[in-house]
């Protein structure tokens, strides 16, 4: 048997180590006890070299057998016989189903071109091998691809704007090295279960402050809870930044060397002053050779204007503050000021009293927390999706970044800002498997797909969906766009690969049964603990399920026999997967150097990083070795992401035209819903007064485990909506009532829970329920795919691309029945 498990004395029983990796991205090592060919129990493997990481795993992973052997398990390939969404299918042979799918895909390619076929894979790190098979096929066939970060809208746009990267985070073992931990809109106690104990350890060693409108479980564990008014975090951060700057609690040397604070900005047009424009520097600038994506900006050092070298972070002695008159090459002169001086002008609007009014917090508390944080560094900020998935979430992230940056809490152990939602960040170079020679993907952001327009949007639209590892018909049917297009026939073909009959499978034309992660080989590397791990088959694929590598290889062969060559056609799919793992490790770059399949078969192996001890500490190299920002974000080349930070430094000042017209050159606070709900219908002001929060549930990983009978029992088999008791009373709702949540776009249903921790003006719904548990009314019929135009000024898939603003959604609630 292939696999690294311990072999028990009796032949009928053995232990196999695999990796549980749904879209929580936790990637927890589990051991499956296999008895007579069936998994009898699962328990955490607890085999990570740092004992602090043991035991990783939670109730969802522990009850995974409920899904593997559950009633919704897919057994055979299926071809639709009834209306779309009716769930009427007939059993088909693999050959028949694959031939049918290939035929439809060829037909659509012939009619509309290959880019009319849109594929999605969701988080790559949970399975680089099987997911790579679909990416490779899509590239060879020249299909459209929707990046998972775009699809879920988890991308926090402040990252590319400020740090030039896709996203970054500390591994959870590093949390304990922070002296101040501040959490904004993240409920890690319930959503990062295996890592939560590190937060409690951070609390023993320092302070943990939770900023959240609602009294969540993480707030309950914190030293201090700031019950902020929703979506006003930018104002809080700017108020705190003002205190830190006024009291000179900032790290001037760090700001001088690693940020854009000393860069001079023209006061006439708001653009950063270019060396080529300056009379005394133009000549010198013309002789400097810098990469195309960099610019030569100007600083003042010792009273003299100098060119800031974007490729060299050596100390410059630049003045952080000041206003100057500069003679330009054309003979005119212009007034300039430094970015820090410009920031101080913005901060003039954020005095403590104003901030207290905007945020609903007490001025004294804001002041105390700011001073405490700045004098107890390193600061670590956990920036959660319920905070950034708003129209102006980017502004909040940029403002919050000021706190670690001002205090020099970047690139050091226990320091920085982390986002743990989404996590599509690829940990090593995977082009050997993902991007075969001659492959080309047409990347289209998911919101552009939903809106039916935008960069790279195909001429004839998206006519076919090829989906796997996702359930978009529950999780993304924003305003029921997907269901409507499926019902109308605008989507001509829908194909889904899964191991369970999800809502998306129900809406498909062909369904292919795949194995769970205890039935195949794969390679994982995600966040929070930077380990490479294997998924290994404890049991054979159940019923007629086949690995995705096999499915997409078979499809490749049918689409174009030449495509098949990439997928190791001479090997069976298990052997091919192992071959791919070896290829990925050998070509993965410095992160996987020296790591072999044999090592992984013995247990998890830490990825290499530039930081000491291979720790996952973002920007370590930039700060310790003064390397220009940004570091590489796989798989994009540096020229794609380097353009986000033309100065080679952390940038708070953005001067692309749209930033200037929007008044967002520097972070500011903006009113909630003004550009979304209130803009589309001014009457919504006062008509829908509850913000619809779709938080992660303890009992699901998004829509995975929605049908887990063990976990359903723990929730009384009921979807719930959490309401402030006064809000419920005002609507005649008592605990346990079935209520309808509604707005102009859609509706769903849930049972009311009166929650004293829930702030007024809020309806909290635990996301992930399959439609069948909601009377067929998917909860994402309420949401809408708004796009902030600033997110469209560059397009690098999954890096600079529109954030989905799930939280920008107003609803009301009414009682249906007791």
């Amino acid at each position, binding site marked *: 048997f292939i696999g690294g498990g311990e072999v028990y004395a009796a032949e009928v029983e053995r232990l196999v180590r695999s990796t549980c990796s749904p879209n929580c991205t936790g990637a927890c090592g589990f051991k499956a006890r296999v008895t007579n060919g069936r998994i009898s129990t699962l328990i955490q493997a607890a085999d990570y070299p740092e004992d602090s990481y043991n035991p990783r795993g939670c109730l969802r992973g522990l009850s995974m057998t*409920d899904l593997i052997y559950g009633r919704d398990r897919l057994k055979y390939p299926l071809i639709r016989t009834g209306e779309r969404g009716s769930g009427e299918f007939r059993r088909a042979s693999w050959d028949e189903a694959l031939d049918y799918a290939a035929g439809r895909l060829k037909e659509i390619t012939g009619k509309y071109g290959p880019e009319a076929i849109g594929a999605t894979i969701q988080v790559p790190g949970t399975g680089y091998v099987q997911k790579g098979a679909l990416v490779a096929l899509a590239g060879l066939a020249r299909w459209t691809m929707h990046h998972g970060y775009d699809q879920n809208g988890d991308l926090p746009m402040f990252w590319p704007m400020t740090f030039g990267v896709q996203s970054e985070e500390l591994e959870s073992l590093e949390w304990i090295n922070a002296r101040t931990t501040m959490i904004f809109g993240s409920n890690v106690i319930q959503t990062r279960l295996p890592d939560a104990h590190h937060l409690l350890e951070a609390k023993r060693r320092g302070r943990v402050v939770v900023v959240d409108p609602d009294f969540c479980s993480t707030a309950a564990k914190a030293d201090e809870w700031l019950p902020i008014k929703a979506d006003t975090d930018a104002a809080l951060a700017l108020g705190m930044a003002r205190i830190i700057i006024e009291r000179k609690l900032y790290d001037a040397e760090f700001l001088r060397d690693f940020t854009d604070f000393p860069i001079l900005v023209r006061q006439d047009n708001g653009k950063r002053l270019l060396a080529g424009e300056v009379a005394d520097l133009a000549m010198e600038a013309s002789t400097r050779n810098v990469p195309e994506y960099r610019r030569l900006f100007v600083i003042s050092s010792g009273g003299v204007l100098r060119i800031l070298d974007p490729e060299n972070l050596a100390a410059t002695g630049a003045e952080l503050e000041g206003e100057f008159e500069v003679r330009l090459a054309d003979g005119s002169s212009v007034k300039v000021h430094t970015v820090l001086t410009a920031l101080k002008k913005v901060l003039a609007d954020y005095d403590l009293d104003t901030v207290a009014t905007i945020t609903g917090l007490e001025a004294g508390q804001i002041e105390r927390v700011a001073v405490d944080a700045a004098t107890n560094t390193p600061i670590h900020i956990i920036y959660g999706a319920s905070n950034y998935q708003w129209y102006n979430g980017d502004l909040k992230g940029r403002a919050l970044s000021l706190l670690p940056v001002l205090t020099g809490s970047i690139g050091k152990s226990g320091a920085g800002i982390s986002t743990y939602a989404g996590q599509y960040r690829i940990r090593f170079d995977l082009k050997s498997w993902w991007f075969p020679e001659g492959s080309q993907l047409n990347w289209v952001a998911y919101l552009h797909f939903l809106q039916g327009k935008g960069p790279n949007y195909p001429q004839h639209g998206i006519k076919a969906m090829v989906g796997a590892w996702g359930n978009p018909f529950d999780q993304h049917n924003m305003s029921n766009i997907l269901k409507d297009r499926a019902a109308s026939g605008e989507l001509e073909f829908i194909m889904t690969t899964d191991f369970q009959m999800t809502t998306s499978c129900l809406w498909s034309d062909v369904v292919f049964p795949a194995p769970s992660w205890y039935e195949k080989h794969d390679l994982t590397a995600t966040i929070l603990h930077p380990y490479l791990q294997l998924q290994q088959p404890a049991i054979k694929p159940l019923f007629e399920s086949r690995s995705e590598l096999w499915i997409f290889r078979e499809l490749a062969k049918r689409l174009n026999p030449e495509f098949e060559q990439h997928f190791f056609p001479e090997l069976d799919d298990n052997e091919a997967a192992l071959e791919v793992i070896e290829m990925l490790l050998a070509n993965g770059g410095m992160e996987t150097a020296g790591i072999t399949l044999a090592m992984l078969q013995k247990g998890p192996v830490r990825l290499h990083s530039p930081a000491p001890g291979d720790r996952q500490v973002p920007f370590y190299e930039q700060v310790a070795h003064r390397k220009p920002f940004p570091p590489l974000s796989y798989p994009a080349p540096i020229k794609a992401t380097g353009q986000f930070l033309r100065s080679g430094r952390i940038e708070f000042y953005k001067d692309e035209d749209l930033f200037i017209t929007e008044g967002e050159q520097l972070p500011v606070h903006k009113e909630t819903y003004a550009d979304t709900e209130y803009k589309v219908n001014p009457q919504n002001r006062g008509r829908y007064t509850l913000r619809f929060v779709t938080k992660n549930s303890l009992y699901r990983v998004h829509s995975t485990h929605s049908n887990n009978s063990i976990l359903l029992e723990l929730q009384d088999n009921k979807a719930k909506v959490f309401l402030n008791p006064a809000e419920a009373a005002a609507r005649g709702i008592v605990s346990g009532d079935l209520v309808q949540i509604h707005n102009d776009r859609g509706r769903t249903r849930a049972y009311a829970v009166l929650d004293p921790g829930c702030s007024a003006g809020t309806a909290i719904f635990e996301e992930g329920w399959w439609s069948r548990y909601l009377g067929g009314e998917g909860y994402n019929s309420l949401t809408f795919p708004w796009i902030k135009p600033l997110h469209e000024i560059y397009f690098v898939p999954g890096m600079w691309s529109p954030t989905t603003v799930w939280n920008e959604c107003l609803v009301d609630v009414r009682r249906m029945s007791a």
Partner: protein
Amino acid sequence: MKMGMVIDLEKCIGCRSCMVACKQHNAQPPQTWWNRVFTPGSHRHLTPPAKGVEFFLPVHCQHCENAPCEKVCPVGATYHAEDGAVLIDYERCIGCRYCMSACPYGVRQFNWEDPAKAHQRSEYQEQYHYGYPEDHRHEGRLVYMPLRPKGIVEKCTFCAQYRDKGELPACVRGCPGKARFVGDLDDPASEVSTMMKGRNAFTLLPEKGTKPTVFYLPPKAKEV
């Protein structure tokens, strides 16, 4: 030797992984839970009783030294093992349920249904059921079966089937918060004994005189 458990409520994150590990490893059918995690003061788990207050409390058999369940058992099915754990001999239990009414913690549960049938209420594929797959005898007495007979009472055994192999109970192995510890309460140097020092350890319903061997450390510890 006196087996005992310490649960650190500061570390307990209320995630109920212990409940699920216990259920899965001990083959509990639908509706049966040997182990439960509550949010005290609240009618619903993970909903705070009031703004600003929330902690969690796991409750399972307290393995009392002075166990009322043992005293009322007319057939000697419930007994103290040599290490202090309270176990049920499934071959002796007659299902009279006196023990269930005697237990002040409400942790004992009755098998109303044929177990194979009970598992199938989840509609698993091909008669699948989960759990430690073999019967287990401790000191010759049948204390674990993957499919318990209809009409008997069951509860937490501190995972007798695992402890007899030198392994920890499933709830301890499965706790991502590292909040649960087992060990020898008689040994002052054991982990469980030392961790209780200076932490105001308490037991549930001490006024009942049951002398539980499950101890709790209060939440909100600050060790700066």
